[in-house]
């Protein structure tokens, strides 16, 4: 690696405003949403054109300099954490909506375009881009592709992989790969699906074609309170079993509900053991019949309170508490550790019970706020890092929760990604041979390991060191965005 030669070449290839070399300037790039893990980058490059991105890749490959792609830096697992001696390739300046194609209901955008900006750009046509991660006001579509981001509405409308129809990708050697497009099918292997969620390890996305959907004409949100988490979990299963796929189906336990109520006064019933929020959408007739169906199920399974919001401002009030749940939980303890396991819905009641058992065993409270409809848990383990031993306990609970998720047929990360945070848990979920297959996929794109080295897939050596005990955990994702 020759950094001085690389820097010289980068300076010759890009305008000075595209390079940040001084430590003060590179400071904001030391971390993403996983703020406890910091690593100063050697250099930050902010290209303004695809040609410049290509130049950066060619120069870095030639001089053996690692490249870490970065969108808006809102990721929660450290996927965009810099590598020492590496370049952070920030794509925020590629921020143009290139084309809105109403005939084919797609938009072609650059990777730095914010998620919400896509929906805003097409709102006057009655269209929107469906995936809505909680950070959607800030996160970029390129980052969404890298993480295969979800959101509250992905139960019905799918993840990023279901809503991105085309990608333009630069390989590490600067070649262009056009994957998918405006068509509904493409020849050959589905590399587009492979790139979604690949955490910047396989290529650099320079254009994204997204699917635009017509806005549903009507919606309603139901708020249901239960005197046990099991009853709420049963209701979730029954709603799905009755043939309804709600637009959103969220759950909060009593600890979370009380925290939220103290924080934003959303009017939630704090005496309830668990709350469900269920959003249904569609044509008005369908919404009305589905509100009736969900109400009937909730009552049958013991709802102690039920409210329905039809008007947009009422719906916003119902959601306000849910969206404030993470910051509210942050007020309960100096620190919290947010997990992201996903489990089959049928295991919800059982796993929630066992999480409560772990909380008792270790003597740390755990608040639960999560996407119940798709079984994506976000247990928040509350602790105080200044109390000796508490952080280790939090990590121990976290590790056991993820172990539990894998044991019931789930996964260690539903939507936040592996990044650096969950590398050790990956050793639990995958065998050495499976990890090796991942490495062969990686090698097929990036044989020298230039792109985002050390992320997403743990080395076999690391897994053997972790052995049976895979508790490591990163630290707290706290920034000032909504988290839900």
């Amino acid at each position, binding site marked *: 690696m020759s950094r001085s030669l690389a820097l010289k070449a980068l300076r010759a290839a890009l305008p000075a405003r595209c390079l940040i070399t001084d430590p003060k300037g590179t400071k904001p790039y030391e971390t993403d949403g996983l703020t406890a893990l910091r690593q100063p980058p050697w250099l930050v490059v902010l290209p303004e054109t695809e040609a410049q991105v290509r130049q950066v890749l060619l120069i870095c490959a030639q001089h053996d300099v690692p490249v870490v792609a970065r969108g808006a830096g809102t990721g929660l697992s450290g996927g965009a954490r810099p590598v020492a001696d590496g370049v952070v390739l920030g794509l925020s300046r590629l921020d143009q909506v290139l084309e809105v194609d109403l*005939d084919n209901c797609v938009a072609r955008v650059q990777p730095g375009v914010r998620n919400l900006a896509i929906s805003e750009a097409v709102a006057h046509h*009655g269209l929107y881009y469906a995936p809505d991660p909680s950070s959607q006001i800030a996160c970029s579509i390129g980052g969404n592709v890298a993480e*295969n981001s*979800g959101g509250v509405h992905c139960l019905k409308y*799918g993840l990023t*992989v*279901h809503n991105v129809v085309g990608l333009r990708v630069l390989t590490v050697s600067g070649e*262009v*790969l*056009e*994957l998918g497009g*405006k*068509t*509904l*099918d493409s*020849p*050959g*292997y*589905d590399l587009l*699906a*492979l790139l979604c*969620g*690949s955490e910047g390890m*396989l290529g650099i996305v320079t254009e994204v074609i997204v699917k635009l959907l*017509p806005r*549903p004409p009507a919606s309603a949100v139901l708020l249901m309170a239960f005197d046990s988490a099991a009853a709420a979990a049963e209701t979730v*299963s029954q709603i*799905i079993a009755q*043939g*309804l796929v709600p637009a959103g189906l969220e759950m909060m336990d009593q600890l979370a509900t009380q925290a939220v109520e103290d924080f934003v006064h959303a009017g939630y019933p704090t005496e309830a053991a668990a709350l469900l929020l269920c959003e249904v959408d*569609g*044509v008005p*007739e*369908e919404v009305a*019949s589905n509100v009736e169906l969900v109400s009937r199920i909730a009552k049958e399974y013991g709802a102690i309170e039920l409210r329905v919001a039809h008007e947009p401002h009422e719906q916003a009030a119902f959601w306000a508490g849910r969206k404030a749940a993470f910051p509210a939980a942050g007020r309960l303890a100096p620190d919290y550790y947010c997990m992201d396991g996903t489990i*089959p819905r*049928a295991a919800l009641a059982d796993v929630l019970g066992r999480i409560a058992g772990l909380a008792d065993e270790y003597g740390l409270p755990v608040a639960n706020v999560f*996407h119940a409809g798709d079984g*994506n848990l976000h247990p928040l383990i509350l602790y105080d890092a200044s109390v000796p031993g508490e952080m280790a306990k939090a990590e121990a609970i976290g590790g056991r929760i993820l172990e539990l998720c894998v044991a019931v*047929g*789930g*996964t260690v*990360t539903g*939507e*936040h*990604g*592996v990044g650096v945070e969950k590398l050790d848990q*990956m050793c639990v*979920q995958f*065998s050495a*041979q*499976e990890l090796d*297959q*991942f490495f*062969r*996929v*990686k090698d*097929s794109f990036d044989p020298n390991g230039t792109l985002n080295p050390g992320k*997403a*897939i743990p080395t076999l050596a690391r897994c053997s060191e972790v052995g049976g005990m895979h508790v490591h955990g990163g630290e707290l994702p706290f920034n000032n965005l909504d988290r839900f």
Partner: protein
Amino acid sequence: MSADDQSERLHEAVRRACADAQPLLVAGSGSKRFLLDALVSDGAALLSVAEHVGVVDYRPDELVVTVRTGTPLHDLQGLLDANQQLLPFDPPRFEGGGTIGGAIASGLAGPARPWRGSVRDCLLGVELVNGVGERLRFGGQVMKNVAGYDVSRLQSGAFGSLGVLLTVSLRLLPKPAVERTCALELDAPTALARMRQWARQPLPLTGVGYQAGVLWARLAGSEPAVAAALAELGGEPVADGASWWDDLRDHTLPVFKGDAPLVRVIVPPSAPAPLEGSVVEWAGGLRWFAAEDAAHGQRLAAEAEAHGGYACGFDGRYARVEHSVMAEALRIQQRRIKHAFDPQDLFNRGLVEMDAD
């Protein structure tokens, strides 16, 4: 191991083939063999998964099924139907046959594709044996899962060339309360314009097709929602509408039955050409032609490519991984993927031009 679970036998067969460098023709029921028979090399030994059958896990309220890949589509769909659920991608059943493994491997989706998603969209997890004889699991039984690269979805449309699929986990959808079809008499360009107009409206569509002067629309959902949408679309309700969609999906309409070579054209749905003379599905995104002669076939390909699409003969060469519309860099990457899973090119040899790299 029950008689239905042939995992160990299949795993062992692949291990042996690895040791002997013996190419394998991986097949299910054989109903889609016509899509690759001109490609697969002569020396390949048949490895049939057709006896590897049965549902491994199905809890209807999870909306997920895990099934062995030799399971006949007919059996799986019967089970789902009895539970008021369906496979979102509505796979074709050529000559009434097909296995779920073949449906995943071929990546062919039925008329509901634009609304209910592609084959890979509902593929949550797989267990497979790769080309070095390793038995591996990727993905799982949950909707949201970002642990590791999405190797599962890569198997859809790979025609078995990356691994022998043992089990697949699929996301399901509830069956709609009602489903209705209506038809409008329109010329092709007007019908295409109507299709695109509908696509921008929040309508409960699950099928939009066109054939010989008739625009077909299928609506599904709750009774009042479908009734309201039918009124909005106009056109005549068709009493036995479901059969037209079945015939379209399973290729039993006349256009699919003649002697003329069938050409599958994929274009952005709004593409004005090629259009005349085709049977259209996917609201314009998929168009079938009976090619009159070689020149006609070439014309279709040229027009499709000019509008950002591509054309493929739906015949013994369809399953090839590379295609003339691919840029060189993409071809090379496709070969590297093949190499990453099956370095000896054992599975369905001929689908990828390995030595060209």
